[in-house]
């Protein structure tokens, strides 16, 4: 019975793992190069890129031009470098379990 359960669950979709890698966008938001795994959905890459380009664009409009932007989440980091209207974007999962974070101090 346990074996059957194991087999019946083996084909279910796995949780989406966040990738480590980078991609480069031109000023129109087209991906020029990418080191992200193919398993990472292209729509997410595009979404991240669009938000980053908008952030740089709107910063310029607010008279606060930026060349670099890092977004820190609890478990993920997005680092973007502005490249003549486009951007180079690095994605980095941050896996520090709370217990380890506590012990480190």
């Amino acid at each position, binding site marked *: 019975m346990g074996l059957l359960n194991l087999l019946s669950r083996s084909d279910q979709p796995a*949780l989406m*793992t966040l990738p480590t890698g980078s991609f480069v966008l031109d000023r129109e938001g087209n991906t020029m190069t990418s080191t992200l795994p193919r398993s990472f959905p292209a729509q*997410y890459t595009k979404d991240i890129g669009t938000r980053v380009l908008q952030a740089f664009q709107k910063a310029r409009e*607010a008279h*606060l031009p930026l060349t670099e932007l*890092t977004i*820190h989440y609890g478990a993920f980091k997005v680092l973007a470098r502005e490249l003549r209207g486009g951007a180079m974007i690095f994605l980095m999962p941050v*896996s520090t*379990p709370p217990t380890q974070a506590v012990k480190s101090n």
Partner: protein
Amino acid sequence: MNTAPKILLVDDDQAFLDLYEELLSRHLPSMPTVRVASSGSRALALLESEPFTMLCVDLNMPRMDGLQVLSIARRKYPQMRLVALTAERDEQFRARAYALGVDQYWIKPESDAEVGQLLESIESLLQRESQGGFRGVQSKSLVDIIQLECLSQSTTLLRITNGHAEGRIWVHQGEVIDAETGELVGEAAFHRILSWKAGNFELLPSDPDRPRRIHTSYQGLLLDTAQAFDEATSQHGEVAASLPPTGQPASSLAALSETEGVEFLLATGTADPQRLEHWSVENPAPIATWTRDLMRSFNALGEKLRVGPVNLVVGGNLRRKLAIAQSGDTLLCVGFRSTAGADQVRDGMKEILSKWAS
């Protein structure tokens, strides 16, 4: 009236649901009512229709995965206890679940002993009422918690977090022996930590080698804190009376500017564009709009990727660095000198958030 806690258990494995429905409903002292759902969408529908004390979710489910369910549940039902109960051992998922605000992350038990630990932990979570204040012992203030620890002659380490700020209080055999937050240590740190109005705390194993920096009795410390709080309240009342009803006094930002390397400060409401305070900013309105748009956009991305809300944004150009973070319903955008290193910006922001929260 039925006051038994209610647990919603979500898993796509029916055998698991059957087993744990029975385990939780029959073996926990609080005798909770347990409902089950075999999919994320069914779970959300149940949450809409009746209140639950706790949600236990498997992560690996088809269509709507557990992280998505947890993310929605945390946003819509902030008081509900969230437990991830999964076979996923990848640390990335543990980190993401905690970033989404789960109370506990459990690997599905594989032995009797582990089942016992899980049940004990769930019972402990259920015993905590959800009435605000410090999560861990809700409805108690931090003063109450310290009094409890000292009266019971405990030896423990209290770790308290308040937004980005973190503090630690060492209790040894019922006496407070040291405290630390940011650059503050000893009594100064203790008083700073006790000025925080809410947050999370956890009890960590004691640290027997911690040197004693505080020699005042805990009663004395708490009295000093109460006195300082009363004085601050009365001063704030006087200042508030002389100011327009909206916003904090401008001097509050000026005081934050004393942080090393700070060039400008801007505070704006997360949802209220009218709320705007600034110090040494030439064009505050467009920067405030950009700050709000940026945080809204990347918080939405965090939700989509199931990694929780943005903790901190750091940006820069040749002329300056800047950092943005949220404290309650306020967004703080802080400019730093271009020579400030990443650590200085991060530490400076921690200090500013801690002062702002106090």
